[in-house]
């Protein structure tokens, strides 16, 4: 039982990332009808917002101290981040909290990037074949990825979580299991809560605001909403920006779990597509549910007991599920009838 719980928990944080990316993908697909292969790149850009803020905050002033000498006999270098010099302890706290703070940076940047991307590129592809949409966004993803690689290098850049959240908690002990049976890193709990809040916020936004109502109406019948005198294109542009923001903040918060590198976006994108397909193209709830489901499934498949029974299953389980779902229930687990079924 405790092993079971541990695997569920392990799957949840990865599932949270899948769910957030898949949510954005589904939003874009449901509103604009565009298959966005560059969505993973947005996730990656979010992660690199955190990296940029971190390196910005830790810009250091180097002072040579002539009094002290290093082992080589040269004057000792004293490095102090400017921010600590200016603000003292508060500066230290800022550096410590750079990952959550990066959200403040990521939201406007991702919104802007999303809007530019939609207005500048995607807009021209509404009427074209799905193959063309896939290809052009695929090209864009490569471009973004290579620019990031040129800027930040090819190696993963570790990002520490705030020291407050670095430890782990013994969840098992709280629930009455043996000690150290279910130990879970604190930051993953934070990530899980964060994912839940973001997902809830997106749903509430679509459900309870006028803007959300118009968007939902547009998803159902774009033309009629347009005929009612509502500028649906502009709303959809904002939805695209919103999807970019969701992917971006998901990337920011994921950095302490997985050190960001330039190809993380593509790695997640391929899986997120599978998630969308399993959940049902165009179904927001389906995307979220399938995200968590597949995350948990993957973590179960990587248990040693399962692996010894079916070698290699941890590598392929998600794809296998996708294949089975597409063949047995083409519209996905939660898909509406008739949406992109063929």
């Amino acid at each position, binding site marked *: 039982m405790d092993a079971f719980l541990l695997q569920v928990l392990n799957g949840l944080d990865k599932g949270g990332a899948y769910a957030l990316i898949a949510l954005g993908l589904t939003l874009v697909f449901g509103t604009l009808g565009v298959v966005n292969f560059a969505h993973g790149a947005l996730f990656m850009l979010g992660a690199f917002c955190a990296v940029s803020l971190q390196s910005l905050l830790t810009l250091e002033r180097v002072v040579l101290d002539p009094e002290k000498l290093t082992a080589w006999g040269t004057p000792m270098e004293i490095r102090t981040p400017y921010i600590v010099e200016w603000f003292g302890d508060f500066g230290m706290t800022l550096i410590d909290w750079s990952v959550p703070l990066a959200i403040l940076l990521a939201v406007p940047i991702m919104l802007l990037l999303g809007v530019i991307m939609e207005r500048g590129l995607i807009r021209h592809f509404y009427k074209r074949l799905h193959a063309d949409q896939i*290809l052009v966004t695929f090209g*864009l993803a490569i471009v973004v990825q*290579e620019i990031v690689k*040129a800027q930040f290098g090819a190696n993963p850049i570790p990002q520490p979580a705030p020291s407050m959240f670095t430890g782990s908690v013994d969840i098992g002990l709280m629930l009455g299991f043996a000690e150290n049976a279910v130990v879970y890193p604190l930051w993953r709990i934070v990530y899980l809560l964060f994912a839940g809040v973001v997902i809830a916020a997106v749903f509430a936004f679509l459900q309870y605001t006028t803007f959300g109502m118009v968007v939902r109406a547009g998803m159902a019948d774009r033309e009629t909403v347009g005929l009612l005198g509502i500028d649906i294109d502009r709303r959809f542009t904002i939805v695209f920006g919103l999807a970019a923001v969701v992917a971006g903040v998901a990337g920011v918060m994921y950095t302490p779990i997985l050190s960001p590198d330039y190809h993380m976006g593509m790695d997640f994108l391929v899986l997120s597509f599978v998630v969308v397909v399993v959940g049902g193209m165009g179904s927001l709830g389906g995307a979220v549910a399938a995200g968590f489901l597949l995350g948990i499934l993957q973590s179960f498949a990587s248990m040693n007991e399962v692996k010894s029974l079916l070698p290699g299953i941890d590598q392929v389980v998600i794809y296998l599920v996708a294949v089975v779902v*597409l063949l047995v229930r083409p519209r996905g687990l939660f898909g509406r009838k008739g949406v992109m079924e*063929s």
Partner: protein
Amino acid sequence: MINFNVKNKDHMLLIGFIIVVALAPIIMAPIGGGYPDLLQKFAIFGIFAIGFNILFGLTGYLSFGHAAFLGVGSYTAVWTFKLLTMNVIPALILSILFAGVFALLIGFIVLRRSGIYFSILTLAFAQMSYNLAYSVLTPITNGETGLQLRLHDARVLDGLFGVTRGEGLPSTSLFGMSMSGWSGYYFCGVIMIIAFYISIRIFRSPFGMMLRAVKSNQNRMSYTGLNTRPYTLAAFVISGMYAGLAGGLMAITDPLAGAERMQWTASGEVVLMTILGGTGTLLGPVIGAGVIKYFENIFSSFNDGILMEAFSWLPEFLQHAMVSVIGLFVGEGWHLTLGALFMVIVIFLPGGLIEGISRIGNVIRRWRKPKPLPTTEADTAASE
């Protein structure tokens, strides 16, 4: 498309193609491409793209997992070298066969869906093969190291026919003719000509017509009572076999097979080649493959030093600026150029280079003869 001259024009096209392949070393020499390694790559990727075009160009099914078949072909060929013989013919036949069977299995499943689902399914299968090749299948694929020839490999057939084992690793051969250098290129070239000829025949056959009909409207085909699945499956298997052939040739020129050949970036590359040249045209994919491999070769060899020299005529600060901007696109950053090219082609020239050439041709024709031509004639001439 169909008129009485089609046969003749195809013959001319084939003859022209043969001449270009034969004279490629001379043609490519002035632009620094006249050496066998590069030309071999042209031929191999040309075959890969021709095969991909039979699926994507004719039926419109966009596969994002074709590299898996290439990988299967490579592994099969290397295993043939290890177990049977260093002669290339059995290796090629077996690579085609194995890739074909693999494509049949996968195609049977994935072709139940079309459109974006098809793309995602093929991608899923290719990623699955790639992951398996890296992990569980290590006894067959040798994991990250890649499958290599060993000194003490069995090579049963070679033993039977009394081929003497030399010192060191043996090299691939065609009945004693070594497959390195120019003979290697011409071997690949001849195979590409055969592959091209088969693709012409497929394009002009009733089968090819059927595939085009599937592309233009599959529903209508179904309504007329026709089961399209066998046709699309046949196209899928044929293009998988082409990929297997290309993989086998890759193993022949360099007997080493690694899982990275199956990664989805490799699948993306062949998509790009086909689109760059012109989807659904006969020559397009070959041209696309050649252009991409040529520029890959040129661009990745550049470095900042060469760039600095090239821009030395500029004032210094401009020189540095130019070098840092262009440096992004060359050398290590070649993939950036590739991605940008991808976008530019899809946005501005969906018909690929072939369309570009015909557009230029139209402009020139109009400029020569100010009188408006009957459009049909101009269009048919341009589409050739």
